[in-house]
């Protein structure tokens, strides 16, 4: 049974896919180390995902509890997104970018869609690197 099905809450959001990914790694670790308690779970999510951090944290806590995993603390951090142009070296942040709602929504689902909607503010190129803000990472302290 997939997560969220037949449980107390039924989530319809994209955040669920991210929570499932996090939970898969955490539960694998719990099985491997034969532990049911973690001191700290720190999730880092890139700003490009634009996930609802509080919702994601609550969903993760809810699912961990349903799996019988306890913990002292669950933290969800957001890593700010920065770009650097490969043509002219200009650097800028996602915060500087103004996007219509549909484009923000697209980047939320598929962060690489940023290349479809954002161009270098200096030279207009789409050839730039996402230097930060694309991460999906979890650190677990036993």
């Amino acid at each position: 049974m997939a997560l969220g099905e037949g449980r107390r809450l039924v989530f319809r959001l994209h955040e669920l896919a991210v929570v499932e990914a996090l939970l898969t790694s955490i539960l694998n670790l719990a099985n491997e180390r034969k532990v049911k308690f973690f001191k700290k779970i720190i999730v880092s999510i890139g700003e490009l995902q634009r996930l609802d951090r509080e919702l994601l944290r609550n969903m993760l806590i809810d699912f961990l509890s349903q799996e019988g995993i306890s913990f002292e603390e669950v933290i969800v951090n957001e890593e700010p997104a920065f770009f650097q142009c490969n043509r002219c070296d200009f650097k800028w942040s996602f915060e500087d970018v103004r996007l219509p709602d549909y484009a923000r929504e697209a980047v939320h689902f598929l962060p690489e869609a940023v290349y479809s909607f954002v161009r270098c503010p200096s030279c207009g190129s789409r050839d730039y690197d996402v230097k930060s803000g694309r991460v999906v990472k979890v650190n677990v302290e036993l």
Partner: protein
Amino acid sequence: MSFTFEDPRVEYVRVKLARLRSVLVFVSGKGGVGKSTIATLTSFSLLSRGFKVGLVDMDLTNPTIHVILGLSLSDMKVVEDRGVKPVNIHGVNLFSPIMFIGENPLPLRGPSIVNALRELLAISNLDGVEILLVDMPPSIKEEVLEIIRYDVKPVIVTSQDPLGLWSAKRLLRLLKDEGVSNVAVVENMAMRRDAILGDYVRSLGYTHLGVIPFDQEFHKTIGDVEGILASKLYGNIHSITDNIINFLGV
């Protein structure tokens, strides 16, 4: 003691794909060999045999399956439901980057290609899908290296001309060297009925699915699903579907 999972999506995608009955990925070393067309028509052929089918257009920078199926941008809207819901077209569940980028270009360098591929597989809602078909871009690089990390069965699509055959052999050698155990080859747009790569493919322990003759009229059906399903090409793919099902082991 602490543990860091640099990208939990990899294990998640592995688990998610392992829940399916089979995952077929259409690859080629060279473009223009009809990979997207074969992947799309195979989806319908498997559907007609009673399988619940998902189809992913993983040609991230140049997706075209929606064009084959005659879907407009307004048909390709994102619906959020435990991830992203597929667009259902005559029973086939389609996922495409078009849902996110519309008609805008999506120029991706290497690491972004891998990230986008993982993300698309991670967010696709595959509930109810039994067999997933993934149409890959022409590549013997990161896309292929990434997709064979998972439990998938690659199908190499090749034309019968020397350039296509050369690329197919190179890709076969890569997959063999990487230890991929289930690989199949289909010769497409064929000008002769006999298989050129049959013996070579079997010598590697792989499967030759068959030869698909060139259908000069097929391009007239692009965008019209009824026309596609009435085409000679579809009939020819349908005739090798038993081989595909055997290869899938379902």
